[in-house]
């Protein structure tokens, strides 16, 4: 146990070291007057374009100390959650339907392909018109992004269910409905989970991009406001907070995945007798 812990500790230390070096580099290059300017003609130009790490840090501390950020973060996370849940539900439902109905699938095929190849971010202004500047226009954008990831995975998942598994269930007396519940759905779910990291990430992107294009709250809105006043430190603070929460979301998804997918063998796991 001890032996395994040591290299892991070393890895963590090295990772923190890289972060530290980056911040030091950032500070050295941007602190006004610290080193003679070699690209910009004025000493405070670098700080103007790239911000300063200590100022960014204090903006973040201030956000959390005053509690100003919580409302915005809450809105962004709510949009992410709604976008993900609604998009995944639609993706699952329509994916199952099209995979099990060859005629419907053949009819819908060009439309699905068309929608998928469309850069869906361009829909954001339309959603803003349809759903207003509140959370629903962001949710709608998230839904369009999440839907296709989940849809294609479910479609593929159902199509690739082993024929043996279906024949076996039929021989054991499963009706069509029972086949759907105990073969197609769990099989599709495993593919949905495989795409979960992707889907949650896209829901987050949908929420932030939506906010950025027009909103009255949310972290994307904070960034937009700061950009309007050339407050680059606040922009970087927003980006860092978003990054931290994206990482946290990803970790949460990983935990959920591990809990729900116990039946799947892991690569490192040897077969037990």
């Amino acid at each position: 146990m001890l032996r395994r812990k040591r290299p892991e500790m070393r890895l963590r230390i090295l990772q923190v070291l890289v972060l530290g070096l980056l911040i030091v580099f950032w500070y050295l290059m941007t602190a006004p007057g610290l080193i003679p300017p070699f690209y910009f003609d004025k000493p405070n130009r670098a700080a103007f374009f790239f911000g300063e790490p200590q100022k960014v840090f204090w903006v973040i501390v201030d956000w959390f100390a005053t509690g100003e950020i919580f409302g915005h973060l809450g809105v962004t996370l709510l949009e992410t959650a709604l976008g993900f849940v609604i998009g995944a539900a639609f993706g699952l439902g329509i994916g199952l339907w099209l995979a099990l109905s060859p005629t419907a699938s053949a009819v819908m095929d060009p439309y699905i392909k068309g929608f998928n190849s469309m850069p869906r971010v361009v829909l954001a202004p339309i959603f803003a018109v349809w759903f207003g500047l509140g959370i629903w226009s962001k949710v709608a954008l998230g839904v369009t992004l999440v839907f296709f990831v989940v849809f294609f995975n479910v479609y593929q998942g159902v199509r690739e269910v082993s024929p043996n598994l279906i024949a076996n269930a039929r021989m054991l007396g499963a009706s069509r409905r029972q086949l759907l519940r105990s073969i197609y759905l769990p099989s599709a779910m495993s593919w949905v989970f495989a795409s979960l990291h992707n889907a949650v990430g896209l829901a987050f992107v949908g929420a932030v991009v939506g906010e950025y294009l027009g909103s009255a709250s949310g972290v994307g809105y904070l960034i937009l406001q700061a950009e309007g006043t050339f407050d680059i430190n606040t922009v970087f603070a927003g980006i860092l907070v978003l990054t931290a929460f994206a990482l946290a979301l990803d970790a949460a998804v990983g935990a959920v995945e591990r809990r729900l997918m116990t039946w799947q063998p892991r690569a490192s796991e040897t077969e037990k007798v």
Partner: protein
Amino acid sequence: MVSNDAPALTLADITCRFAARDGSGPYTAVANTTLNVAKGEFVSVVGPTGCGKSTLLNVAAGLLEPSSGTVHVFGEKLRAADGVNRRAGYMFQADALMPWRTGIDNVIAGLEFRGVPRGDAVAQGEAWLRRVGLAGFGDRYPHQMSGGMRKRLALAQTLILSPDILLMDEPFSALDVQTRQLMENELLALWAEDRKSVLFITHDLEEAISLSDRVVVLSAGPATRPIGDFRVDLPRPRDVSEIRMTPAFLALHREIWAAMKEEVLKAYAAQKAA
């Protein structure tokens, strides 16, 4: 017409044609095959690889509708449109366990589909796990079990419904020789308890003789048909590893192999040419 002395399974003049992949006309997998399995009889079907043995079994199971010919189950006509053969259990060659279900949930799947309350189903399931030697492994997932354990789980999954007919498609072909002989003995012991009718597909002649009452030899494909029907009068109960040494077994083996050999060579030549 339903009569009490009807055979458990009757395949009458079955022909199966499939559309060819390369468009060179239909491929006839099975041609004019007639096969009976009496009540309580253990029948093995042997034939060279790729001769359409599984096709025949799928027809018997009602999973595949033959191009022509009829299937009768205890005197009743089986129509693929009405669904599968409800009185048969099917053990597949490949793994057909649900990977997302634990051992016990796999075993009781059939009971669950039939609407048996979960408490009853689990009690029966545990009993079956004990019978196939998997007591205490009910909470393992299939991927946590060895190949032999998965086969036993599949056996319990099929037998828990106590089907009148057992269809088995090379169920043990993926196992190593020792595990395989253990499984064959276990199958015979379970079969001896209530003497189901069994249609057992294999390419292994020794396995066929040591398990069966009757061995049917199929010709090489395409257009497979039975070319020999041999009664196996070896005493029961049998031990599959010991019975292989007896002179009666060896004589039977020689006799059936003589009928099979030519077909095996034909199949081999056809595969080599392709």
